[in-house]
Structures are given as C-alpha cells and as structure tokens.
C-alpha cells in the first residue's frame, strides 16, 4: 500500500503541471456543481418553510361532545404522520378572526351569534407533507362522527409536490452532467499519464509486475486528484457563499456532511475516471 502511495506521489512530482491542471479542472467542475448545490440547498430551505404551513383542518359539528373531542385529539396525535393536533374552539376562532381580519372588526362586533365552527388543526411531520399523506390523514379525520368537513390546500400541496420533484430532477441531471465532465477530464489526464509512462510500464511488465500492481498507483492518483479537486471546490463555494451573503441575500451553506459528501464525490469520480481510462490504455502499451 505505501508502495502504491509512493508510486502515485511520484507522478505528481514527475508531472506537476499536468497534475495541477487536472486538479484545477476537477475543482472547477465540482465548483459549478457546488454552486448549483447551494441553490438547491437554499431552495429546499425555502420549500421547507412553506411546507411547515401544510395543515389539515377538521371543522367540527356544533355541539360536539367535549370528552369525545379530547379523546379524538389524543388519537389523532398518535397517527404516524401527525406532528401535532390542536383544538380551536368557536370562541378561539372568533378571536383569531377578529385579530386577523381587522377591516371586518365592526361587522364581527355586531354579530349576535358566533358563526364560526370549532376545529381541529393537524400539522404533519416533515416527509409526510405531500398529497398522498395529506389526503390519507384527511380521509381518516372524516371518519370521526362529529367532524363536519375537512379542508386542506389541495392545490398548493400538489404544486409543492411538483416543485420538489422538479428540484430533484434538475439536481440529478446537472449533477450527472458535471460528474461526466469531471470523469472525462480525469480519464484524459490518466490517459496522458499512462502514455507518458508507457516505457516505464513496459519495463514494469518485464520484471514481473502484475496489471493490478501497475494499475493501483494510477487509481490512487486519480482518487487523490478528485479529493483535492473536491476540497478546492468546497473552498471556492464557500468564498462564493460569503460574497453572496454579503452583497446579495441571506443564504445557507452546506452542512458538514454535505461538504464531506462533495469531497467524497470528487474522490469517487477521480477513481472512476482513472479506472475507466487506465485499463483500456494499459492494454495498448
């Protein structure tokens, strides 16, 4: 292993310019990927705050028995999808309407009878805030005898679904495109390295080196280049993030896990690019 490492390092020493070039290219393609990732991360943050407002409201029939409602609240909170269930009485509803609908305050003041029904407001756990789960919960709420009607913003829950799907799809396509570019670049630099060292490889073969032995330093070298490229890309992304925050808008950066994943992804495409390239070119020298 340390022999493999020594041979891989030797390549950096022998062709420093070529190595720096490939690290830089990988860094920049991962950087673009990283910028796009930042957009996705921030978009997801925004989506999440919208999602938090997804709720299902069950309006109760007038005169629903208090004990039954209290029991129902417990049952509903025990649903696997449910984060919280809150009882809103007729009076609470009126007070809230008064506070929120200032322009109608006078009308409300003159009401003899409270026209607003009591309700149970149900918030869902993250991951369940999509059409299927929301409808399922709504359906179950309808099953309670004292529930008159169940409402949720079906339209925009569906829109949210589509937005989420779109963000994921674009992320995968752009990510794949840049991964392919990086793999091709690594493959090309490995190809140059193999050709540059073809005489050396022939000599290794003559003294009895196995193909695996010859290949390993190239793979390691590719992985190291990818790793370095990934690290530089994170650095560049962080620089961009700082600038954006200072001059444009408040935004979020990658979590440590996400940053580590990007660096690991760099190493992975480095490994992939070199393994795709080295086998093919070793056969030719």
């Amino acid at each position, binding site marked *: 292993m340390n*022999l493999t490492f020594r041979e891989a390092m*030797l390549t950096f020493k*022998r062709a420093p310019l070529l190595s720096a070039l490939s690290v830089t290219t990988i860094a920049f393609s991962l950087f673009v990927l990283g910028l796009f990732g930042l957009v996705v991360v921030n978009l997801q943050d925004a989506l999440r705050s919208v999602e938090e407002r997804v709720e299902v409201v069950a309006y109760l029939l007038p005169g629903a028995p208090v004990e039954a409602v209290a029991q129902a609240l417990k049952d509903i909170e025990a649903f696997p999808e449910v984060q919280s269930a809150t009882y809103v009485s007729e009076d609470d509803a009126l007070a809230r309407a008064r506070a929120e609908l200032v322009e109608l305050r006078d009308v409300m003041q003159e009401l003899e009878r409270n026209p607003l029904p009591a309700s149970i407001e149900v918030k869902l756990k993250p991951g369940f805030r999509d059409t299927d789960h929301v409808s399922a919960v709504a359906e179950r709420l309808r099953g309670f005898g004292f529930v008159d009607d169940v409402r949720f913003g079906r339209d925009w829950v569906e829109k949210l679904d589509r937005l989420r799907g779109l963000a994921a799809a674009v992320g995968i396509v752009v990510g794949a495109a840049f991964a392919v570019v990086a793999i091709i670049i690594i493959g090309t630099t490995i190809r140059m390295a193999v050709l540059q060292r073809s*005489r*050396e490889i*022939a*000599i*290794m*073969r*003559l*003294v*009895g*080196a*196995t*193909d695996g*032995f010859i290949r390993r330093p190239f793979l390691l070298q590719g992985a190291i280049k990818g790793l370095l490229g990934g690290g530089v890309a994170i650095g560049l992304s962080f620089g961009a993030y700082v600038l954006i925050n200072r001059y444009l808008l408040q935004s979020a950066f990658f979590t440590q896990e996400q940053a580590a994943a990007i660096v690991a992804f760099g190493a992975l495409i480095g490994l992939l690019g070199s393994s795709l390239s080295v086998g093919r070119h070793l056969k030719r020298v």
Partner: protein
Amino acid sequence: MIKFTNVFKAFPKGGLALKDVSFHVAKGEFAFLTGHSGAGKSTVMKLIYADERPTSGEVRVSGYNVNEMRPRDVPMLRRRLGIVFQDFRLLEDRTAEENVAFALEVTGARVSTIAARVMRVLTQVGLAAKAQAYPRELSGGEQQRVAIARALVNEPTVLLADEPTGNLDERATRGVFQLLRDINASGTAVVMATHDLDLVRQAPYRVIELQEGALVYDSAVDEASPRDQAAAP
C-alpha cells in the same frame, strides 16, 4: 528448463519469423543464440518470456506452457527469469539502487530484506559505489551492469540476454560477458542472443544458430557449423 518443440511464429504483417524451431536448454547451461539481423533471435526471446505466443508448436519454460498460459501467470513466469536488453531499459528517474529495488518491490518482497539484497547484487556486478547514480550519470557498460543486477535480484533460474553487448565498446563488452559467465558459473542458465562471433568463439559454450527463422545449427546436435562456411567471404 526451456523447451521449444516444432515452433512456428507468424506475425500478422511480417510473414514467418520462426519456422519449425526445436531445441532444449538445460538447467545451468550457457547457450548462444546467433544469426543475422532478422533471423528471429529476439522472437525466440519474446516467446521465452511470454511476450509472444507461438503460432504452432510448443514452448515450455520453467514449468509453464507458454502456449496456453493464463495472462495472470505471465508475471509469475517473468519473476523466475532475468531479462537484459541491448538498450538497458532502466527507469531514467530512479537511481541504480532504486532500479534494482523496483524489480523486487514488484514481486511483493518483504521491504526489510530489499536493501540488503539490492546491495548484494550491485556488489556482484561491481557497481556498489555507484548505487546512488542515475542512469544518465553512468556509462553504457555500467548501465548494463545495473540492468544485469536488476535481472539477478530475483534469483532467476534463467538469465535472458538479447544482445547485451550490442551498444558497448570492446572493453565493456568483455566485462559484461565475463559477468554473464560468472553468473552462469554460479548455476544460473544463460541464453544470450548475439551476432558478435568473436565473443562466441572465445567461449566453449553451446551455440544455436538461426537463419531466416529456421534453426540451422545447434552445437549440441550438429558437428560443423554452416556459419564457419558462410563466414568466408
């Protein structure tokens, strides 16, 4: 040890390089492989170290059948051979010592034993003092000694030398040849391709002569050499 039986070798574009060649080199033997340029000497060598496979006939080397060897056995065969070429084939950016050590590292030899084994063979070829020199800092003769040390370090049963003195002046040639004789004297079989007939006449060794791909003389079998007749202009 090395056994050719009715070996033919045809190259895709190049016609027949070997025609019906049969010979056997025993353990510890020294054999010259002679013949004009293009006679097929290097082809014989390549078949021995499994760089090429025979078109027909059988090549056996040190227990391996080159005809039907699996690719992954080829490195194993080569570790039992030492190979030396006219153009030395040293790694330019490694010192003499590192060049020799490399042949050991490739085999997965224990790291703790490498340095000592390398110094021993460098001493054997008379280059211990130049262990830290790079190939460009060495004369042709010295470079060939490094190459021989590299070939020896795995303690091969056969040393293959394809015109090892082809690039050397007379003095260096004598030195390298003497080294090969010493190596042979200590029990390693040597197959040496050469067209230096003076060298061949100097020593009482077996001579195998090729002409346009055919084996025309083998001193272990025949009485007189056609070379002796052809040598007169």
